[in-house]
């Protein structure tokens, strides 16, 4: 796992942040994302998502502006060749650190498949890696890992939302 701070130029980042934190950007409510092993309350089991590219049907769900203003600058900077999946996660403040299940994003032996988690805002939520590493949520930083690295997301308690962009790519 590797973290790159100040990943995008400030102006480009601020543009992404203002779009994703505005009241005009649609998010979609999801529940039942935690599995039966989850130790917390079943009522904690929700977050919001905006799928840019769905892996199952390979469809681009977002409009051209989302791709142009949000995804393209990150893909370009990553020097990515191919987009497998991309989604924006929004976790509302649940007043405790809710941990998702340990998971891997892709079951593949292809070492070229990478995961990038781009942090849109700074908060005390974080990404935990099974190796013991912890990647904090710091705005405009990106967390890079191989697709087969086990990790989980942890929600925040100090801001209204935690927003990040999850990209699986080669």
């Amino acid at each position: 796992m590797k973290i790159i701070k100040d990943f995008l130029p400030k102006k480009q980042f601020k543009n992404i942040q203002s779009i994703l934190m505005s009241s005009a950007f649609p998010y979609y409510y999801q529940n039942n994302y935690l599995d039966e092993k989850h130790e917390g309350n079943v009522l904690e089991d929700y977050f919001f998502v905006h799928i840019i590219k769905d892996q199952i049907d390979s469809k681009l769900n977002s409009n051209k502006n989302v791709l142009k203003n949000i995804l393209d600058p990150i893909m370009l900077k990553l020097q990515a060749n191919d987009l497998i999946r991309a989604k924006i996660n929004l976790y509302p403040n649940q007043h405790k650190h809710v941990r998702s299940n340990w998971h891997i994003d892709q079951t593949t032996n292809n070492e070229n498949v990478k995961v990038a988690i781009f942090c849109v805002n700074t908060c005390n939520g974080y990404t935990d890696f099974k190796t013991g590493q912890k990647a904090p949520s710091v705005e405009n930083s990106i967390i890079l890992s191989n697709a087969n690295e086990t990790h989980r997301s942890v929600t925040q308690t100090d801001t209204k939302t935690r927003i990040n962009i999850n990209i699986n790519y080669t």
Partner: protein
Amino acid sequence: MKPKIIKSFLSKTNFKNIENLVTKDNFPWYYSPNISGINGENKNHHYFTHLVFCNGQVNSTYFEYFKSILDKLKIKKLHRIKLNFYHNTQKLIVHHPHVDYIEDKVKSHKGCILGLNTCDGYTIIENKTKNGFRVKSIKNQALIFDPSVPHSSTSCTDSRARINININYE
């Protein structure tokens, strides 16, 4: 105008149509960092909305789904239809009191809050008593009241979310 409660407001079929629509994982919600519009609002106060009708204009492709409510209310003039989504919080949060505006003015008109699910959240309408007039969130129950009178919403603790529809009309 005295607040009025109407149980089983819509027919089962009409209610189900709306309930199914807004609880689907492809229904868009828009994040709002502020509920009452008061400056310096508590950091725990935020919600998601979906504006169906506003400023004399349809604002959502789902407008047709809500016509059954308008018919039932015998509306002469529609000002706004807004869906509210308050996510679960560990402790029940009572939001700041506010009044509903029409064309930037506080003007006497009618308000209807239709509960889409049953939970421990509620609406408080200020009156001469200390606790105000409290109305529980009950599925398919409508509250008709004067929204120029200060009122507050709450979150919920016993359900993943509290969802309701707020209609301002004459």
